[in-house]
């Protein structure tokens, strides 16, 4: 396992993503403006839906762009809203062809696709996941953040825990690893709904709520237990399997122990065939 990659600073892709979020917020605002004052989607339900989507996309992307709360789930949410608003414009165009819905629709759809891709790219460029997808890795980071709770005494960051787990899974030849991939998706999009009754992605929850979601998972029976066990497995092996953490538990590597004369001779033995 390559353990050299330990720095996770901002990259060019991060900068581009920030600009894309800003541009997206402006585009969403323009869509909203056009929908309100120029009847972009006409009147009636479609117009109302478009206004709602434009508002949601604007709020999410603006929040992400100004860095108040820039996280993956928020960008994903903004991108999804932009895509839906784009589809709304396309429907409007199909019902009554006009220039404005065509332009807005195309721009919004493009924005949605670019944001999805760009967010994934920032994660890939920064963390180089080997097994999980960029989004699954983001979920694993959030899981590790919630599960490894040392009140500031942690020696390894949740990012490193997730990367350790990802690199480990990449080397394993096991059918179980595929299940763990699916598990990450389920945690991101279903766990908050099933445990807290909140239809939001896991990454969009605050750290306190994420912990609550996992606590409730632990407290339930059946499949929830298997989910909780898997989360513990990935988090623990990612955290305590890291040599830096091992030292923090008091573990002393063999070479650093007080060794007697026999132990100092570490030459590998050969075992001749018995005659």
């Amino acid at each position, binding site marked *: 396992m390559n353990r050299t990659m330990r720095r996770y600073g901002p990259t060019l892709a991060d900068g581009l993503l920030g600009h894309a979020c800003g541009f997206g917020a402006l585009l969403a605002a323009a869509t909203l403006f056009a929908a309100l004052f120029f009847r972009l989607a006409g009147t009636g339900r479609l117009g109302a839906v478009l206004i709602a989507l434009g508002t949601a996309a604007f709020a999410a992307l603006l929040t992400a762009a100004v860095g108040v709360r820039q996280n993956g789930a928020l960008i994903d949410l903004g991108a999804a809203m932009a895509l839906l608003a784009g589809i709304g414009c396309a429907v409007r165009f199909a019902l009554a062809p006009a220039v404005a819905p065509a332009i807005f629709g195309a721009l919004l759809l493009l924005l949605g696709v670019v944001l999805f891709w760009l967010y994934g790219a920032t994660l890939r460029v920064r963390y180089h996941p080997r097994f999980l997808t960029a989004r699954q890795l983001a979920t694993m980071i959030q899981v590790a953040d919630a599960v490894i*709770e040392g009140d500031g005494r942690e020696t390894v960051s949740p990012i490193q825990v997730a990367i350790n787990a990802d690199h*480990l899974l990449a080397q394993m030849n*096991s059918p179980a690893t595929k299940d763990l991939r699916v598990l990450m998706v389920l945690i991101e999009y279903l766990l908050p709904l099933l445990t807290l009754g909140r239809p939001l992605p896991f990454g969009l929850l605050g750290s306190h709520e994420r912990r609550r979601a996992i606590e409730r998972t632990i407290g339930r029976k059946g499949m929830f237990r298997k989910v909780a066990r898997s989360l513990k497995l990935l988090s623990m*092996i990612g955290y305590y399997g890291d040599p830096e953490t091992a030292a923090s*538990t008091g573990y002393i590597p*063999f070479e650093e122990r007080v060794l007697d004369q026999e132990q100092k001779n570490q030459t590998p*033995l050969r075992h001749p*065939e018995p005659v």
Partner: protein
Amino acid sequence: MSAARYDVAVIGSGAGGAVQAYALARRGLSVVVIERGKREDPTTFAHDEAVQFPRLYKHGGLQTTVDRNLVIAQGATVGGSTVINNAIWLRADLDYVLPRWEQAGARVERSDLETAYATLEKWLHVEPLPPRRANHGTDPFINGARALGLEAGLLDHNRNTCIACGWCNYGCKYNRKTSALVTFIPWAEQRGARILDRCLEARILTRGDRATGVRFVREGRVEEVEAERVVVAAGAIGSSAVLLQSGIALDGRVGEGFHAFAGVHVTAEFADPLDSFDGIGLCAYVKPGLSEEYVLENYFSPPGVFSLVVGGWFTDHFERMLRYRYFAQAGVQVPTVPSGRIRLGRKGDVQIRFSLSAHELEVIRQGIKALGEIFFAGGAIRVLPATYGRIEFARREELDLLGKLCPGPDDLSLGSAHPQGGNLMHADPRRGVVGLDHKVKGFQNLFVSDSSVFPVNIRANCQATVMAMSLRASEYVAR
């Protein structure tokens, strides 16, 4: 494609396959060993769990039963589980095992096994484990057991001048453990045997009642070897899978009767640091009586695996791990009845269908309680079984609450490193998978030689008995 021709093709290179390969090569037979895992250079082994698990373990250590309640650890490398085991040499108690085997239709002569044990012990440098190399949690375990009047002591092991780094389960980089990788495999090669590693999708080729060779995929290419005799020694689970994948099901008998020597860890906290990580992980045991249904062995592991068997979550778990130096550990293992099955799923995937019975669970709980009493008698201030939730006992009397706190199998963190059965031995031609001569029913020249043939659990760590049975089986294969 012209296939190479051998007297014997052995599928698997672990305790069963490696002994078989050497014993047959020693008789002058040409042998090829077909191994799924990679051949590793021990000097490159690292003291790093995250590196060694994917390198040496089957499924990277994630092999479980279908219900996910039991983790089953097996090696997947040249040398098989002998590379990752604790090098404990524990002869099965033949007074316990042989009558049970006979009752299950498999009469094996005591003298056959005793002779094989003795030969192997000479070859593998088996000796009593030296006290100075035992991990530091061993004394409280032995002292606690003796204080309760139990017969406890250090085990025998197959190591030569062990320097006790405590990383036996991740491959011995100093070659002190006499695993098959550094003994039987090179010895067989010296006698002309050929070892083929990274052979995937091994299938036995058959014509009528004869096995004619083995087909497998190596480095993306389909290859075949022809052989006069084929020995399947891919371990419990693996051997049943190879037979089933080769279309040999024997009316559903292949894969039936899977069982395990399974259990849980119990961790004990002491007031002063013990540094149990310093020394050999598995060192001592409490000798079970003839009627006893569990075996107690002490054990300790590096922080990664240790963190998985320590119960609790969040801050509570974190705090416990900060006291890693203060812990000793042991395990209770229970011989289960042959009630499991190895099956192929619709996509050809191998499924282990096995659950512990209510009685077996109760025996495990009794064992946990016994370990708790031993550790308290040895001076522990707290006892923590490997449970799903946070459970710890601060007094002996509290151990009685275990049944209430852990009613089901998923309340415990169950594991086994000693799977058995699936190709049961039986004298009756219409029952079991192999006869007393290890020959697969209905075949002239196809054999199984590993723990999958054990008709009833041996109630002991498997290595010694798998090797002894394999050495015995080589007599039949060579005929």
